[in-house]
């Protein structure tokens, strides 16, 4: 494994970790974007250019901003007093650890049957476009509907009701 991979992985995991542990919510969001950037780099390292840039565009360009907006709209930007961890955080940690243990175990168990180095696959945007418009057109359409519904739903949910305004 190349040192680049380790660097990027470290960046990703570090970003994720900080995003989870920091006290200040905005810092968490920014760390999250770091994690996203790292992921995008990982994707690029896996020769998935399209996915990588889509990752940047969607997550850093949209989701992160969205999170930040939400934070500011919910007055969460200033550092809270008292514990930021919920009452049952210990058991949560345990559960997470268990999950990681099992996943890691599974990966190592199956390590020998995983395929080794493969030739770099040719996946240029054209192929992806053809696949999207061809084999995967139905999922694409459904996804479009889903996104529309989600957008409208989000707007309606976050909308100020005039009744309780009065």
């Amino acid at each position, binding site marked *: 494994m190349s040192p680049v991979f380790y660097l990027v992985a470290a960046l990703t995991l570090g970003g994720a970790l900080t995003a989870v542990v920091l006290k200040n919510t*905005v*810092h968490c969001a*920014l760390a999250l*974007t770091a994690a996203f*950037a790292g992921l*995008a780099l990982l994707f690029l390292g896996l020769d998935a*250019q*399209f996915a990588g*840039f*889509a990752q*940047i*565009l969607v997550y*850093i*360009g*949209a989701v*992160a*901003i969205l999170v*930040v*907006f939400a934070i*500011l709209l919910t007055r969460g*930007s200033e550092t809270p007093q008292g514990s930021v961890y919920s009452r049952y955080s210990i058991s949560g940690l345990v559960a997470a650890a268990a999950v990681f243990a099992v996943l890691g175990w599974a990966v190592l168990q199956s390590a020998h049957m995983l395929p080794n180095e493969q030739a770099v696959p040719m996946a*240029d*945007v*054209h192929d992806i476009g053809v696949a999207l418009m061809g084999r995967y057109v139905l999922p694409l359409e459904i996804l479009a509907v889903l996104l529309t519904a989600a957008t409208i739903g989000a707007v309606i949910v976050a909308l100020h009701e005039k009744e309780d305004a009065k």
Partner: protein
Amino acid sequence: MFDTLARNFDQIFILLRDWLVSFLPAGMRPVAGIVLSVATIVALFPGLFALTTIFERKGLGRIQNRIGPNRVGPFGLLQPVADGIKSLTKEDIVPVSANAAIHFLAPLVLVVAVFMGFAVLPMGRNMVLVDMDCALLFYFAMGASTELAVFMAGWSSRNKYSLLGAMRAVAQMISYEVVLLLSSVAVVMITGSLSLTKIVAAQDQYTGIFPHWYIFTPWGLAGFVMYAIAATAETNRSPFDLPEGESELVAGYHTEYSGFKFALFFLGEYLAMFSISGLGSTLFLGGWSAPFSFLQWVPSWIWFFSKLMLSIFVFIWMRGTLPRLRQDQLMNFAWKFVLPFTIFNLMVTALWRFMGEGWLRWVVCSALLAAAYGIMARVSMRREHFEPRSYRYAE
């Protein structure tokens, strides 16, 4: 003889690079080549920036019936140098309550992200840093990450004006980024590729003496107009410069910045302007291709940069001419007029794509677009009501 001369002149930078690189051992040539080109870009555009500032100030002066800077150097041409020295030597103030790390990172992220955008712009025949397969996507990814920098700047400096400015900027950029993307998607639909070089190549053909620029098609024209609007908003230029509206919130998200960091923001803004104009001319104005077939002997990079400067001039012109919008007007304009029209334009583009050659598609598409524009303009006009307003102060 003349042709070869022209061709060499056209490729002069490439040749120059290869010549310079050729002194190095073969192993490090590619790397060195890239480094060289990066260095060129990094050196070139700030220079252009400096040129543009004086250009803008003088132009605005003319428009506002002033002379503009004329003290430093001949005709004040050295003004930018003086400015640079000033901003470098000024003290770098960081507010006490500011969030130092983020406050420091913001301008860097901004400038870096903006510089990344230039990596995929073909500035001439064969003159592109990385000929990526999904260059356009890359460009927009980079453009998207500038918003974050803006937010970091505004939030970290603990100042309500900055925060407001940042929020405005981010909201505006997100809203208009959608339009920017969709209007470019039209081009992608026609070219069938996200690669900018392919897009330019597709426009570098001629019928008679006239080029196949996309702006000369109905959907292309509409798309370009939409793109121009969105670009102006994306770069926070007047009339969309609310985020740094001096009259309302002192200077927006970089109120708390001074000295070099401020200069970086300034630089970033102009670089964004350059790159977005570059992209615009690449998408719609045929990039580095010549406007007439008999002018092809003129080097391609000259065309690219002249188009770039032309659009910069338009930017300045608009700044000198148009008043600033109100926030709600801005948003309504984005979501209720520009976006729907762009989407409609997408459909028209699809129609164009599938109607096949012939005069018919010209008529149909133009008619459709004209009708759509008329209707939507009328509708939005009905929503606005233009009677003389009386402003009340002090309440």
